[in-house]
């Protein structure tokens, strides 16, 4: 039973790492007081999801998804799908990375506005100021 548990973790360590990262990010977003720490937690959360997708595209013994033949044009060799890693998750995650950067930009802009309005970035202080 102990050996099974170990082989499970050993064969799926990437997915488990992703889950742990995701939970760290989620915890930061919920429990931290400082707004910038929450924003960093959001970034960690999204990065974990990106890592998850990218790791689904891996194939044992395969190379990067760029076909290495020259441009002889008519010397087409047969391309085996198992020789190249899956390009689709990489494409999707290019989009997700851009979305995460865009969200980060808008979040920082809002945080700057909050700072100008309340003079602080700590959430408990802001709540105290709102109650007055």
């Amino acid at each position, binding site marked *: 039973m102990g050996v099974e548990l170990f082989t499970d973790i050993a064969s799926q360590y990437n997915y488990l790492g992703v889950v742990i990262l995701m939970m760290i990010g*989620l915890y930061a977003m919920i429990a931290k007081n400082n707004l910038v720490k929450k924003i960093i937690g959001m970034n960690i959360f999204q990065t974990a999801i990106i890592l998850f997708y990218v790791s689904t*595209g891996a194939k044992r013994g395969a190379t990067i998804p760029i076909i290495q033949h020259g441009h002889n044009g008519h010397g087409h060799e047969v391309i085996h799908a198992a020789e190249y890693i899956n390009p689709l998750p990489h494409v999707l995650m290019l989009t997700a990375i851009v979305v995460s950067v*865009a969200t980060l930009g808008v979040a920082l802009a809002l945080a700057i506005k909050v700072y100008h309005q309340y003079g602080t970035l700590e959430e408990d202080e802001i709540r105290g100021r709102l109650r007055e």
Partner: protein
Amino acid sequence: MRVIGLLIVIAFGSLLRYGVFFFPEWGDPASPASLHVSPHYIEEATAETAVPNLVTAVLADYRGYDTMFETTVIFAAGLACFMLLRVLQRQVPECRLYRHIPTGITLRIEKGGKLPTESGSFERIDANWVPHDLIIKTTARFITPFLQIFALYVIAHGHHSPGGGFQGGVILGAAIIMFAISYDLRRSIQRIGEQATAVLGSAGVLIYAGTGVLCMVLGADFLNYSALAGLMGVDPVMARSHSMLIVEIGVGVAVSAVMVWIYYNLSSAGRHDEGL
């Protein structure tokens, strides 16, 4: 809050851990993700689009519509930062700081005082005082053209090596931001103003959408590049490759412009007078 957060995280994490147990084996070439749609991309993409880099082929052609909206996302973020932060009335600052370069003395001139002209001996510095650093300024000036050429290379060579519009656009934007950081924001805005970045941002996405509309006008579906074969004078497969370059250029222009625009707005909190 911490206790609730910890409980949520432990519950959610355990649920995900349980699910991970049933995933297909990592790296298995026979997993469903590798057997259904992607073999077509790997085996046929170069024949259908004449682009060896499969990621670029899928990004700019097969799923080109997604990429157009991705560029729109980054443009919307630039627009959002502008709308949220920009303060358009010019505010006269309380005091200005000037540095006398030959001696290193900092002058502080209150409102209403006579300002020295910016010349070889006086330069205006930001309220966050930093020492005059010749090494950083010279190195930045030296590196910037190489950075920009590398960025253009990454955009143009995206068909054959890892790269493409987004990567090259970010490097190009970073080159300009490096200039803004090593000198100061005002000098960068003098060279590439906010209006230029905003209009270039829209222009980049318009290049992408415009290519699609051109395909539609010529009778094919939106973003079906083979319709442009007649215009370009090549066969449909090469037309796809060339059109992918055009849209990647559009993406590069948009991304670099928006990166600089967001930097201008964030670093000066919308006032565009003093940056980082």
